[in-house]
């Protein structure tokens, strides 16, 4: 499904953030990537859908090498990769339904997108998914009036609307309170099973990683130093992953994502 080979990434600042990663994700199941802040988790995930440009290596998603794709072919590849963001990244001023339908933007034409005339199948799917996550009463509510948990569920639905072959989630629960965070993780887990969808989650919380993931990948300074079942993640392994780094994150990490695409000048919250 996803095969990453010798992936490296060097930002404009010169530092090697990913140091030749090789990783293969088979079929369905939830894979957690853990590691302290700055280990390169976000960079890894964002290389997969090319929000960040990999420096070298190859990333094959569903048989297509996405590195080097441009224009239409890149956009088509992105359709099959859903992404859930830490900060939800909903379009605040649009309604829940418009946000959800925006997951179909890779499929519909520009005029359809502009006038919001989506195919009936998309609308059906949107309602089904919204009902599934319990948001059927918020269809025409503006996204910025929702609570954090509700917003992230919209984020999940938007990603699923893409009909993705794989789902990426970059610390999807780091902006949520512990209880909501737990709900979103179980929702993700359930949906992964229902849709037999492989899910790749960056996660800051080791307990959640153990609880929800079938497989845990430990990242440290851009290198994979652990790869195994959640139950194998003992204290010794954790020490290796977090040793001498910023922390054993149950805390919220600082995010530097997004700056790359803007020429590295501005840091996003």
């Amino acid at each position, binding site marked *: 499904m996803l095969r990453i080979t010798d992936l490296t990434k060097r930002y404009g600042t010169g530092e090697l953030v990913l140091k030749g990663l090789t990783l293969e994700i088979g079929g369905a199941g939830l894979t957690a990537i853990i590691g302290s802040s700055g280990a390169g988790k976000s960079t890894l995930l964002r290389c997969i*859908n090319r*929000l960040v440009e990999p420096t070298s290596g190859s990333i094959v998603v569903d048989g297509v090498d996405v590195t080097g794709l441009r224009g*239409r072919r890149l*956009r*088509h*590849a*992105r*359709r099959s*990769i*859903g*992404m859930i*963001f830490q*900060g*939800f*990244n*909903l*379009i*605040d*001023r*649009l309604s829940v339904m*418009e946000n959800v339908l*925006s*997951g*179909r*933007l*890779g*499929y519909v034409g*520009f005029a359809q*997108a*502009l006038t919001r005339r989506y195919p009936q199948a998309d609308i059906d799917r949107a309602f089904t998914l919204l009902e599934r996550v319990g948001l059927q009463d918020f269809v025409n509510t503006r996204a910025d009036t929702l609570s954090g948990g509700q917003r992230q569920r919209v*984020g999940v639905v*938007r*990603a699923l*609307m*893409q009909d993705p072959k794989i789902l990426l989630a970059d610390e999807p629960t780091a902006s949520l309170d512990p209880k909501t965070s737990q709900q979103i993780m179980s929702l993700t887990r359930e949906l992964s099973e229902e849709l037999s969808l492989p899910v790749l989650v960056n996660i800051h919380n080791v307990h959640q990683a153990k609880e929800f993931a079938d497989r845990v990948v430990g990242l440290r300074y851009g290198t994979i130093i652990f790869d195994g079942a959640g139950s194998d993640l003992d204290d010794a392994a954790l020490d290796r992953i977090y040793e001498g780094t910023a922390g054993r994150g149950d805390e919220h990490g600082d995010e530097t994502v*997004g700056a790359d*695409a*803007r020429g590295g000048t*501005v840091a*996003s919250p």
Partner: protein
Amino acid sequence: MSAAPPKRTWRKPPAIANPVLRYGLLGLTFGYLYWAVASLPFDWNRIVQGFPRAVRIFGNAIPPEFARSQLMITGFTESIQMAIIATLIGVALSVPVAVMAARTISPTPVYLLGRAIIILARSFHPVIVAIIFVKAVGFGALAGILTLIVYSLGFVGKLLAEAIEEVDYGQIEAIRASGAGYFKVLVYAVFPQILPRQVGLSIYQLDSNLRASAVVGVVGAGGIGGTLMNAFRRFDYDFALAILMVLIAIILVSEGISGRIRRGLT
């Protein structure tokens, strides 16, 4: 034990510590003022005559003469029409220019072109733009409308470009991640975020255009400005005062309405 405490004095330290710089700047300022006044061609004789003239002009102007209201209505109507049409077209054109001039979403050559358009449109006073358009397309409202379009383009374009540069980039990334191309990203991630700003700016610009439409007429570009200019030429100061009073009233009303709508928006 018995030594008297030393006598201390205190003065506020000067704003500029270096005395040379301090007095130098002061001297420079006065030197400049002297130079400016001395080098300008004042015609003191004529200026002295001005005071009795001022008395005569205000004597003639009061009471203001509202009898030629038909002329006034025509002029003001034309000004308002010019302002409306120019705002519509100018604001519409300012959107693509603002997108071009937003550093975050445009490639550098396009960005520079967009900035250049905005700087050109903003650097020239509307009256100067108007006199050029009058020569190019003739006297009348058309020249005025073109002028106000340029004026709107510069102002709205600049502020809108800044608004685009400040949008939340995460929303753009989210839309991009779904496989959307450039224009879909604009429509879904950028425009919704700048819409409130855009509406506010358009209403503000309508108000500004109304003000400006009253002055471009002074150089023949239509509207009430021409009527006012003629009144001054013919020494009809009472009519000029009447026009001015109505003009101020309209500006105040328009400013009030525009301010209220914009406050209601946010």
